[in-house]
């Protein structure tokens, strides 16, 4: 009888742990089970040099053509996962913060919402928010905020999802 109770306890416990693990892993995913891989890069655009981080070489020429900056440095890169409708928040540099929310995924396209804030006076001041649809795995750039009042370096945020 003790052996039967012992076996039953083990079975019940194993099932309970499995249920718990599945539920725990579901955090960050929506009810449909859709989760997105998201990557957010913080780029410093400067006029003080012509150095370009290796990861940014593919777009350096494009950016130089459009804007008057000559150097692009990858300051920070953050990758994570979020469920549909859930927000991935990440610190950038110099008090800037980005919040990315994947909204929809259809075929090779993904719809994202991103909000950029800056820490001022103990609060996160909202700077800009935008919703756009891009190709999965490709990046969208938004930027122009001065990083440091003493320099003309600006922040460019690159965001992608898949």
């Amino acid at each position: 009888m003790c052996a039967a109770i012992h076996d039953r306890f083990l079975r019940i416990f194993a099932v309970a742990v499995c249920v718990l693990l599945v539920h725990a892993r579901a955090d960050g995913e929506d009810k449909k089970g859709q989760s997105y891989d998201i990557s957010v890069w913080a780029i410093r655009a400067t006029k003080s040099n012509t150095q370009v981080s290796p990861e940014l070489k593919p777009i350096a020429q494009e950016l130089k053509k459009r804007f008057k900056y000559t150097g692009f440095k990858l300051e920070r890169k953050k990758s994570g996962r979020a469920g549909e409708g859930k927000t991935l928040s990440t610190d950038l540099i110099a008090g800037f913060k980005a919040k990315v929310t994947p909204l929809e995924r259809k075929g090779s396209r993904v719809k994202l919402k991103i909000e950029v804030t800056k820490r001022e006076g103990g609060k996160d001041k909202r700077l800009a928010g935008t919703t756009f649809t891009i190709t999965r795995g490709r990046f969208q750039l938004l930027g122009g905020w001065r990083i440091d009042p003493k320099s003309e370096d600006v922040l460019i945020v690159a965001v992608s999802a898949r």
Partner: protein
Amino acid sequence: MTMPDDKFDELLDHVAAGRLDDLTPEQVTSLDTHLNAAASSSERLADVVPEADSRLSVIAPTPTDAEWDGVWQRIDSAAPARESAPRVIGRTIRFWQPLAAAAACLLLLIVWRLSPVQVPPGWEMRLSDHVVVHEIEIFGDDCVFVAYSDNESGSAVIWVFEAEEAREGA
């Protein structure tokens, strides 16, 4: 109502002979009442020994020692084998098994929850084509514009002019 003595004796003869089945229920009741009322009347049954049932005339012989040994051997062979380990140690091991399993599962859960999310490698910087901007919100006095590429790829950069910079530009 008391029973006549001759009637009583007749019924008592039936009881003494072991033929209770010959009496009717009323006769049994009357006899019982009479015996309870008169203690001396039951003395007649004090030395009565019931006749042996003829069906029990044959008494089965008791098993021999050899037969008993065979019986015990069959019982022992049918019983499950006993554990060689002492009962105390066996119970101790069985007590710790579920606890060890529970601790292992709990540890696995903690490690899984605390482990960093594994993100597939391969984030390559390539601008998206065919960008569709649905909405833009700008806070404060900043200005924003969307710069699309010259080629037909449809890539775009969302650029914010901060208020001070916008005034300088103007």
